[in-house]
């Protein structure tokens, strides 16, 4: 495969064969090695073949092989002539990250880290097979999917200020829960307000470095040593069911002939099925917003109980990592609405965009990039350049380089816990196996990922945070 180096952080796969546009990869020489080893680049080329794709098929610095679209894939499609694809969003719809600030410093909580984690694991159900605390009726579940985080706030979980500091204000208006299948609803009912498993986690963090003081202050991140809380989870079984349902409906309606990969199944945006998928996906997005809103509320409760107060624990921001949206972008000098797919990518809007809250509009939106277990995470700020470079998108995490199976062979959960404790990080998990699978050695170097984002201009570094306590799902 021809790979043309554009600059130190950008490579291009020129248009060939059925590709309608080139593919553009934001990476470094170092990260490119692992990207070349799996199917990432082939998948980026496949995306470039889809109908109505605009500008380029983009690949973010943390990309790895997905199904259909690569994880870390960004693509925009023409509203009239283009497609929408469940595989371009992913199974965990609106898997995302929420960040809370606190007025505490690491010193304040040091002695009570273990207690905080113990209380959090009581307050927030985690792991596979664990039901939520609330048993909902079908009608309430549908209301959650229609209103998102707004439903949670109306029901006593958190504040209206949280909504303002959530992507889409915590609610995608397009949601129509009446298009959810009975199965999606059934899977959603017991799981609202649960963390899940896999790579999902709650993390107590401390700020270790501030790169941009002016911007970090706008975000509510004031000083090195300040304690933050990060929440990483998504739409659970409900979102997965929406993806599976629509993949199947689209297959049955449009067939799979001519697709380079069955997971690239799609529907025209303007078709009935395309519109229904968008409305169902939006309902799953809302479910995930409500989920993180409830968990954030319980996390505050735990701080109030253990530390005496949760005052000052306002939300920095909440971002989606797996989503499709209609957004306006400048293409060939003209502003047009397109359907953006961000699969394992974070929106990274710069100053002035009307979609971002007024409080951030002068600097750009917060971009939250979690590392792997036990490693640093980063807060970045969106840029105006990113709109031209990647339709306003950047990386979403470290990105795996090693299979879970391989990780299990190489790492022991108990050892990882010991090693983390020797670095001052408390760990609580429902499964040793899960700990080994999520070992940081199985992931790309998140430091390198955010460096590429910064240097390429996709999102600029604001602060680095490191974990002091991890509750793994």
């Amino acid at each position, binding site marked *: 495969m021809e790979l043309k180096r554009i600059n130190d952080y950008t490579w291009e796969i020129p248009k060939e064969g059925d590709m309608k546009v080139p593919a553009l990869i934001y990476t470094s020489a170092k990260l490119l090695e692992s990207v070349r080893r799996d199917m990432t680049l082939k998948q980026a080329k496949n995306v470039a073949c889809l109908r109505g794709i605009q500008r380029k098929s983009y690949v973010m610095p943390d990309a790895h092989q997905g*199904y259909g679209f690569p994880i870390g894939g960004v693509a925009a499609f023409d509203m009239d002539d283009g497609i929408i694809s469940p595989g371009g969003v992913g199974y965990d719809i609106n898997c995302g990250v929420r960040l809370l600030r606190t007025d505490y410093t690491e010193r304040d909580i040091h002695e009570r880290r273990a207690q905080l984690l113990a209380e959090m694991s009581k307050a927030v159900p985690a792991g596979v097979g664990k039901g939520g605390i609330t048993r909902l009726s079908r009608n309430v579940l549908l209301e959650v999917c229609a209103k998102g985080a707004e439903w949670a706030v109306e029901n006593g979980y958190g504040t209206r200020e949280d909504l303002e500091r959530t992507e889409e204000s915590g609610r995608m208006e397009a949601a129509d829960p009446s298009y959810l299948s009975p199965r999606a609803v059934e899977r959603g009912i017991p799981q609202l307000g649960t963390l899940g498993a896999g790579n999902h986690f709650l993390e107590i963090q401390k700020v270790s470095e501030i790169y941009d003081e002016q911007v970090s202050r706008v975000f509510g991140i004031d000083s090195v040593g300040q304690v933050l809380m990060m929440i990483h989870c998504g739409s659970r079984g409900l979102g997965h069911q929406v993806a599976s349902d629509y993949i*199947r409906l689209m*297959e049955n309606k449009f067939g799979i002939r001519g697709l380079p990969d*069955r997971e690239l199944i799609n529907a025209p945006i303007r078709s009935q099925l395309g519109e229904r998928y968008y409305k169902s996906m939006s309902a799953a997005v809302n479910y995930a917003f409500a989920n993180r809103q409830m968990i954030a509320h319980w996390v505050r409760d735990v701080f109030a109980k253990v530390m005496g107060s949760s005052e000052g624990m306002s939300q920095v921001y909440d971002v989606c990592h797996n989503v499709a949206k209609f957004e306006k972008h400048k293409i060939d000098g003209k502003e047009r609405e397109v359907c953006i797919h961000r699969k394992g990518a974070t929106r990274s809007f710069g100053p002035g965009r009307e979609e971002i809250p007024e409080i951030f509009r002068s600097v750009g939106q917060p971009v939250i990039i979690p590392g792997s277990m036990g490693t640093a995470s980063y807060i970045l700020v969106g840029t105006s350049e990113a709109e031209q470079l990647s339709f306003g998108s950047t990386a979403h995490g470290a990105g795996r*380089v*090693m299979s879970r199976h391989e990780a299990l062979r190489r790492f022991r959960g108990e050892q990882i816990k010991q090693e983390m404790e020797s670095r001052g990080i408390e760990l609580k998990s429902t499964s040793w196996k*899960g700990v080994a699978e999520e070992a940081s050695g199985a992931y790309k170097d998140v430091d390198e990922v955010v460096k590429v984002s910064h240097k390429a201009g996709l999102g600029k570094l604001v602060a680095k945070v490191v974990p002091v306590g991890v509750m793994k799902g």
Partner: protein
Amino acid sequence: MERYRFLRHTADAKFQAFGTTLEEAFINAALATASLMWDWEKIEKKIEYKVEVSGKDLMQLLSSFLEEIIYLLDSKMFLLGFPENLRIEKKGSLHVLKALFKGDKYSDKYKIHGDVKAITYNEMEIEQNVHFMVQVVVDV
């Protein structure tokens, strides 16, 4: 013959399941999927669910069949021990699978060690040489 074998995959779990018949390969694929979450051999067979799925082709049938395991876990907290009486038939243009899922409801006596989010078509293969082999990548 071994029931199933896991292969390398960067992000997800990939396995091959084997059988002298297509039915047996499907049973072993179900066990491989369950093995990512719990030890199916240790699940008591106290509860049963009748499962019936259909597919326009065998791949769709396989993915719908394996999805039943996740659906029953999420909605009923059901842990599959073994899929019994599994039959695959052709009805018109559809492949239809019927089986009886035997297992137990999740409780503290069982250990769950992993999550399967979804069954994917990625690198899915269904082959017949001397025996049947199905290959599946699941999103974990």
